[in-house]
């Protein structure tokens, strides 16, 4: 049975790779031999397929979770599943749901090839650059902090100027951070369940291993900082937190938590780590919910709070994060279906994101005891 499920899962991942290539941009000349107009000609079918893939991803997620709890799957199996997922999805098309990865590639090019400051010079100023044809937001200066710019030198230089190699190097980088985050979660919790909850979450898989978002690097550095803090390596912990802040500034909210832990250490008081994880989760959830003030809630921002929820494993937070993980992935459907980011897409996106969470919270509030004995056993 176990082997069958894992085999079905691998077939499912391969099918997802094929599906991802339906989203190739016509202007992406490097891959246009795979271009088909399918997603534009079949918007309804594309959306239904996407929703089915997401639902299936969640079915596998809960299945693996359940199997791990029942000891049907061991640590080795989970490691195998994580490794297989990472390697398989490495070859998926990264700009299926977001074009950010092209932005990473072009920003690195501005700095390392053109030798210009990406915080001053916009990619679009390099008229005639072939990457401009498919890069979105080329009219913006670098959006991420210097840590990220430093890290991107690795995929840039290892690509030797070949766009495809650079692009997939960026995906490899995201996969490396994904594996490192899973390892760090295990180091912190000493419980593989946290790894299962975080690493097999479909949102984490899709946004990290498919789209290659750098949020995984943000949480990796923050978690590493937290781990070193628990080992009383305060200076290193703060350096790592700083590295995280200097990718995306959201983890700045964790600074008071770090200072609070140091304060407890100085006062020789015991640190209640569950309380710390809970505060971290709430703060990162706050950063996530504040995102609309800057732009909008993007699904990959959920990666900021998911690892802390996986460490904490408190029922209410777990349910909220799982419902968010599902509903955030549905935010892509209005654009797939309607082909526009204008009305009514924003309204549908907001409804899709917040209505399920609100309903579940209300349900939990009313039927609290029903939930206690049902699905989530730890």
């Amino acid at each position, binding site marked *: 049975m176990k082997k069958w499920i894992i085999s079905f899962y691998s077939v499912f991942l391969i099918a997802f790779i094929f599906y991802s290539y339906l989203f190739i941009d016509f202007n992406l000349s490097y891959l246009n031999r795979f271009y088909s107009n399918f997603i534009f000609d079949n918007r309804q079918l594309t959306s239904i397929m996407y929703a089915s893939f997401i639902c299936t991803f969640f079915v596998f997620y809960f299945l693996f979770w359940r199997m791990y709890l029942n000891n049907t799957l061991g640590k080795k199996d989970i490691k195998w599943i994580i490794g297989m997922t990472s390697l398989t999805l490495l070859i998926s098309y990264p700009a299926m749901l977001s074009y950010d990865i092209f932005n990473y590639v072009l920003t690195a090019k501005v700095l390392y090839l053109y030798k*210009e400051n990406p915080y*001053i010079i916009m990619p679009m100023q*390099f008229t005639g650059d072939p990457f401009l044809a498919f890069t979105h937001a080329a009219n913006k200066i670098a959006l991420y902090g210097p840590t990220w710019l430093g890290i991107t030198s690795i995929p840039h230089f290892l690509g030797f100027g070949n766009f495809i190699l650079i692009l997939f190097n960026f995906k490899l980088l995201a996969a490396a951070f994904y594996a490192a985050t899973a390892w760090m979660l295990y180091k912190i919790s000493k419980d593989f369940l946290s790894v299962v909850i975080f690493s097999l979450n479909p949102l984490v898989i899709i946004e990290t291993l498919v789209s290659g978002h750098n949020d995984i690097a943000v949480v990796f550095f923050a978690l590493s900082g937290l781990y070193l803090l628990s080992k009383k390596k305060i200076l290193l912990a703060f350096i790592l937190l700083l590295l995280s802040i200097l990718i995306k500034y959201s983890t700045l909210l964790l600074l008071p938590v770090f200072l609070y832990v140091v304060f407890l250490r100085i006062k020789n008081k015991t640190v209640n780590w569950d309380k710390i994880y809970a505060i971290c989760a709430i703060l990162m959830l706050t950063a996530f919910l504040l995102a609309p003030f800057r732009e909008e809630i993007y699904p990959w921002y959920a990666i900021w709070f998911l690892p802390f929820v996986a460490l904490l494993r408190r029922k209410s937070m777990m349910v909220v994060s799982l419902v968010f993980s599902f509903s955030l992935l549905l935010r892509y459907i209005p654009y797939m279906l309607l082909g526009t980011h204008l009305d009514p897409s924003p309204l549908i996106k907001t409804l899709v994101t917040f209505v399920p969470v609100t309903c579940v919270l209300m349900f939990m509030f009313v039927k609290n005891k029903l939930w206690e004995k049902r699905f989530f056993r730890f």
Partner: protein
Amino acid sequence: MKKVLWVPFLVLILLTFSIAPIFAQSSYVLPYPSAMPGSFLYKPRLLFEKLNKYWYFGNFGQFTYSLKQSDKYLVEAKTLFEYKQYLLGYNALKKSDRYFKETLPNLEKAQEDEKNITQNRLILSSAAQRHIEILEIIAKDAPEEFIWQPEKERPSKLKIKAAIQLSILLRNKSL
């Protein structure tokens, strides 16, 4: 007969259009004047500008930096001339010229590095046009010469109009 009567009228309209001066105005936007000499913020501003030079690395970066500095000092010069602070205004104008001179070589270097400079060349041309417009405004009210008499030192003669003409000439090359 009626058709013939229309002819002088049409000629008159055409003449009106040809005689009326048409000014080419640049849409290039200059910055607001920042801290002026004498202000306690002026020295920190100079220090910040020096440090900023390293932040604006790269050919395009240096081009942007030089043009921004040139803009800033031109605006400073205009403000100072308006307040009849001729020596300070003269110095600001010279600084603006010095930075303006650095713009084109940076673009040429960028071209050598195989960067497409078309867009930045247009920006430079637009900036030059706007600078000339401002310089012409300054020239209207500026004196031909100004004798600066510092305490316990020899007086020096500032050829203000000539300096403004030189600045215009310099910018004309970048049009």
